[in-house]
């Protein structure tokens, strides 16, 4: 059973290994890819043949558990349909690799990547056709789309249409893929499983018909987009910008057949639906007519083939549409493999032929080609065989296919009444006539006659190697057309029980030709009509024909895609882009009004009870203190808003910070108070630094705040809402999660300080994520400091201004010594806080802040460089190491078979040790790194150290170009402009 899984994953492995080839080996990557399809093919047939129980008469499933809880297993189905398609994929794949070797001739660029993509595609295809699990099928299905995107766009750097075509194919098929996913999920909703065999066994619950119809339509959207059925037919001709081996493989033989395959796969699921027949026949045969029409009027050889492929795909979809099990259908399937195989043979061959023509003559334009038969007879024969098969001439596989189709369509007219039942035969006859027309057209216009001037000018002969695969395919079409018995045997061999008819009649081409029947008469009529139309059109002149613009859907698609960025810009502009200063007000106003609405919904009685229970006059001393603090805060904030000097504002800000810290004490949160004081100091330092930096640049930072009225209104509203949040959000005494931590902190986490144990142990994962946030902030800071101006050259270094040290490093021995002493004391304190944290207020955050502040202190007193020398590492690296240590401490648990972030504790004598300490060390290092990285550059800049100023100006400054005016602009407020907006 593993043979099958290896067969599917072997191409994936190859896809990863082949790009590793280098140099001359890379040029020969194709030879490494060549064994892959053969091996897969062999493994698949080995699985089918060797094992008892895996045969095609009784479909069986190979299942390996994967994500069973999501209903997703690696389960693969062995039945006629899947093995047939897998054989086509691997078999044609082998021929394509061979052809690709000749096509690129070993001198193509990036061959390793090309064949890797090809292998990737092959693996995805095999996975899709063999999947039993519909979700798995979807995954592989999307992978094929991805691989085809890479393959179509392979020459994106050489041809513009290449990337356009690739994008069109990807967007169209992926959009359909989403619909397919929705359909598959609906199917699971109905039947309770993604597994096809379980879906087939289950009975449809009554009342789910509507859902089933929805699932059907969604799945068909996916199939139609993949198989380029109207209205998605536009992507296939555009995807022809791909290299020819890709077109031959993806766009004739395999990928575009996926839609057809899935329709065949889902026949037993959906074909009882009433919608099955009309949807598939109308869209299928409609696409067929459209495709053949377009093919007749195309002048590009690849375009003709692409549109004829679209037509053939439509035909196949329509064919399945006729075979509904429900009322008016033809019942079980018959001969569908013939139609698919026939098309794969001749179309892949023809694509190869076109590739050869393109390669040898430099053009694919039918108006310029001519006389190619004399120049390359081998290709000419291959082309003749392929075209004969496409036109459905006798003794080719195409003839059998067409006869059988005509027969089916004729039967279909008798199986019901109404115009819909005559639609297939009418469409089929018309399309067949057109097919004859362009088949003759290609051969006559490109191969017969004398070589044209355009051909001779560019001519170089193709190698024999490249001509052999199409010849082989053409001959197979001929062989199967003559040995029609084999053809029918193939069909019978791959028949799926309960889906196909039980017994297939043996086909005989001689019998068909000698026995006068309705299909034969139709056939003769078709060929004659086609020839006549061709002659008439040649008289008129083919140059006069062309596809009218409104019918080319790709134009709509392209303008849609091109319009997207435009629409996005419009929308952004509409929302208020270009004015980022609007964003905060808008966000705040929305938030505040939302909160206010919530407040309005609160019960009135709640407020009544609240006002009763509230006692504004506090009982205890602590309560009075809090009121005093609030009063202090009011004064401080008032000063902050009123004063116009930055020093006053900073003073007021620090008072507010201390008020909050004392509040934390009163809330019985010593850890918080410590952290708050430390962070408040660091924040103030930071703001002081930027103020100094602006001073050094000579910018006035005082005065001029702009209109204030509307800001005051928003501020008051926000404040009121926030105040209400305090009153409303408090929980009752019982509803506290924290009670658990309080109860168990000693026994489970071995620490008395519940805040610390929550941080490092109980909710350590949260803390881990939080220090990751810190790391991200640091990385962001790094990005801000690293980014270089694009026009660096504009800033001449020689014009450098003399650095003016506004904040010189003091040259005072006593101060410097005291600073170093303080540094040592602070770090001892930091270590003390660190180890104390588990049982007393303290911990990694606080210790880290103390350490960081001590470094800042040294930076102020002895200069940044001396301070940096104390830490041997870049701040970002330090923070990253910190996060790494925290993660490592969490990994110890899994090593011992325990959950992730399980913490170990023990005592070494009287000293507590445990993984929480390790975790806390990570926190510590992260905090120190953040402080270092984010504060030091600014400090350095403030110091105006000449070297740094040079670096700064070299890196990002344009100040030199725009000298700053030092005149202070504290203008009288009377000159303020009136303005309404939030500028």
């Amino acid at each position, binding site marked *: 059973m593993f043979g099958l899984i290896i067969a599917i994953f072997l191409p994936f492995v190859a896809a990863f290994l082949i790009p590793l080839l280098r140099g001359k080996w890379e040029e020969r990557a194709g030879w490494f890819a060549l064994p892959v399809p053969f091996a897969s093919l062999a493994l698949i047939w080995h699985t089918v043949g060797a094992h008892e129980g895996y045969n095609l008469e009784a479909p069986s499933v190979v299942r390996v558990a994967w994500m069973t809880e999501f209903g997703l297993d690696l389960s693969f189905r062995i039945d006629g349909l899947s093995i047939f398609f897998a054989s086509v994929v691997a078999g044609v794949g082998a021929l394509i690799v061979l052809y690709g070797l000749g096509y690129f001739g070993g001198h193509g660029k990036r061959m390793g990547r090309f064949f890797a993509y090809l292998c990737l595609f092959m693996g995805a295809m095999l996975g899709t056709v063999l999947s039993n699990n519909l979700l798995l099928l979807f995954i592989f299905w999307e992978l094929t789309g991805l691989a085809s995107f890479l393959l179509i766009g392979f020459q994106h750097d050489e041809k513009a249409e290449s990337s356009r075509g690739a994008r069109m194919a990807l967007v169209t098929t992926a959009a359909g893929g989403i619909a397919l996913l929705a359909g598959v999920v609906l199917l699971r909703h109905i039947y309770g499983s993604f597994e096809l065999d379980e879906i087939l066994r289950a009975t449809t619950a009554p009342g789910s018909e509507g859902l089933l119809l929805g699932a059907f339509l969604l799945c068909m959207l996916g199939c139609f987009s993949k198989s380029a059925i109207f209205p998605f037919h536009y992507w296939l001709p555009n995807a022809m910008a791909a290299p020819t081996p890709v077109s031959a493989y993806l766009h004739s033989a395999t990928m575009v057949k996926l839609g057809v395959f899935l329709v065949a796969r889902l026949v037993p699921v959906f074909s009882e639906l009433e919608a099955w027949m009309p949807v598939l026949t109308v869209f299928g045969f409609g696409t067929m007519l459209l495709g053949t029409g377009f093919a007749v009027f195309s002048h590009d050889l690849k375009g003709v083939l692409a549109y004829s492929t679209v037509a053939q795909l439509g035909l196949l979809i329509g064919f399945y549409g006729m075979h509904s099990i429900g009322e008016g259908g033809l019942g079980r399937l018959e001969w569908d493999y013939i139609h698919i195989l026939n098309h794969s043979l001749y179309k892949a061959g023809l694509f190869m032929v076109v590739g050869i023509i393109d390669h040898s003559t430099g053009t694919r334009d039918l108006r310029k080609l001519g006389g190619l038969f004399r120049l390359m007879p081998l290709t000419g024969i291959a082309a003749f065989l392929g075209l004969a098969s496409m036109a459905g001439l006798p003794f080719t596989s195409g003839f059998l296919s067409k006869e059988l189709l005509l027969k089916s369509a004729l039967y279909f007219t008798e199986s019901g009444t109404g115009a819909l039942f005559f639609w297939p035969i009418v469409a089929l006859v018309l399309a067949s006539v057109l097919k004859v027309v362009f088949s003759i057209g290609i051969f006559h216009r490109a191969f017969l006659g004398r070589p044209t001037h355009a051909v001779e000018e560019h001519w170089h002969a193709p190698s024999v190697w490249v001509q052999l695969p199409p010849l082989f395919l053409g001959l197979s079409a001929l062989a199967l057309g003559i040995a029609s018995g084999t053809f029918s045997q193939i069909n019978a061999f791959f028949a799926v029980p309960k889906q196909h008819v039980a017994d297939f009649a043996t086909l005989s081409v001689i019998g068909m030709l000698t026995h006068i029947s309705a299909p034969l008469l139709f056939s003769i009529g078709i060929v004659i009509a086609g020839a006549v139309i061709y002659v008439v059109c040649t008289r008129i002149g083919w140059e006069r024909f062309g596809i009218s613009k409104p019918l080319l859907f790709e134009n709509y698609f392209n303008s849609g895609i091109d319009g997207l960025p435009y629409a996005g810009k419009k929308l952004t502009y509409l929302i208020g882009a270009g004015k980022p*200063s609007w964003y905060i007000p808008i966000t*705040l106003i929305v938030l505040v009004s939302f909160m206010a609405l919530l407040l309005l919904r609160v019960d009135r009685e709640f407020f009544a009870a609240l006002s009763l229970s*509230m006692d504004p006059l506090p009982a205890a001393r*602590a*309560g009075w203190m*809090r*009121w005093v*603090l*609030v009063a202090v805060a009011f004064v401080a904030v008032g000063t*902050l*808003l009123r004063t116009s000097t*930055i020093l006053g504002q900073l003073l007021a*800000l620090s008072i507010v910070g201390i*008020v*909050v810290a004392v*509040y*934390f004490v*009163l809330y*019985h*949160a010593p850890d918080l108070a410590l*952290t708050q004081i430390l*962070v408040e100091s660091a924040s103030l330092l930071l703001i002081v630094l930027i*103020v100094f930096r*602006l001073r050094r640049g000579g*910018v006035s930072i005082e005065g001029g705040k702009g209109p204030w009225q509307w*800001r005051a209104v*928003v*501020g008051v509203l926000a*404040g009121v809402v*926030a105040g209400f949040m*305090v009153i409303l959000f*408090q*929980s*009752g005494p019982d509803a*506290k*999660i*924290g009670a658990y931590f*309080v109860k168990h*902190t000693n026994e489970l986490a071995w620490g*008395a*300080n519940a*805040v610390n144990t929550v941080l490092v142990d109980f909710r350590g994962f949260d803390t881990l994520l939080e220090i990751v946030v*810190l790391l991200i*902030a640091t990385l962001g*800071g790094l990005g*801000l400091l690293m980014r270089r101006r694009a026009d660096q050259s504009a800033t001449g270094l020689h014009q450098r201004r003399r650095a003016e040290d506004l904040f010189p490093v003091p040259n005072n021995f006593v101060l410097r010594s005291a600073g170093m002493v303080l540094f040592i004391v602070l770090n001892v304190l930091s270590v003390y806080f660190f180890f104390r944290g588990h049982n007393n207020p303290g911990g990694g*955050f606080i210790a880290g802040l103390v350490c960081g502040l001590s470094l800042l202190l040294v930076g102020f007193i002895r200069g940044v460089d001396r301070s940096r020398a104390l830490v041997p590492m870049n701040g970002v690296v330090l923070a990253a190491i910190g996060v790494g240590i925290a993660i490592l401490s969490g990994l110890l648990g899994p090593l011992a078979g325990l959950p992730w972030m399980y913490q170990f504790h023990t005592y070494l004598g009287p000293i507590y040790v445990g993984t929480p300490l390790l975790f806390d060390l990570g926190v510590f290092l992260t905090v120190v790194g*953040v*402080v270092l990285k*984010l*504060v030091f550059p600014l400090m350095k*800049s403030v110091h105006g150290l000449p070297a740094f100023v040079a670096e700064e100006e070299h890196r990002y400054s344009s*100040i030199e170009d*725009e000298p700053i005016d030092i005149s202070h*602009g504290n*203008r009288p407020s009377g*000159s303020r402009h009136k*303005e309404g907006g*939030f*500028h």
Partner: protein
Amino acid sequence: LSSQLDTALLVALLFGAGVYLVLSRRFLCVLIGFVLLSNAANLIILSSSGDPSVGMPPVIREGVAGAVDPLPQALVLTAIVIGFGVLAYITLLFYRMYADRGVVTASQALDTGVSDDPSAALVCRPVPRSGGKEGRHA
């Protein structure tokens, strides 16, 4: 339910002033406003642990009962530090904008030409003043 009227008042004050400052066009005011906002937000979270007039710090020892809820405290502790990280990032951002383009207010950042509000123009004299006023409103 408990009386936290004072906390509510303090939060309202800090939050309101913070919002008022953050809406300012001067980068420095925005920084200060941000500090006030994070203080207010931390107080809101902490206040959810209930009336502070009863209870003990959540350091659990023998014979000590009635510890307050440690969870909001743990949340706020990390929030304070993260608030600092974000503040430092914003400061660097403003520093960078200043170093790059010489702007210190939002109006200047939007329009390196002349700000349409003279009182907000912080005397940077970046670009020729011609036509700036009309251009902005057009």
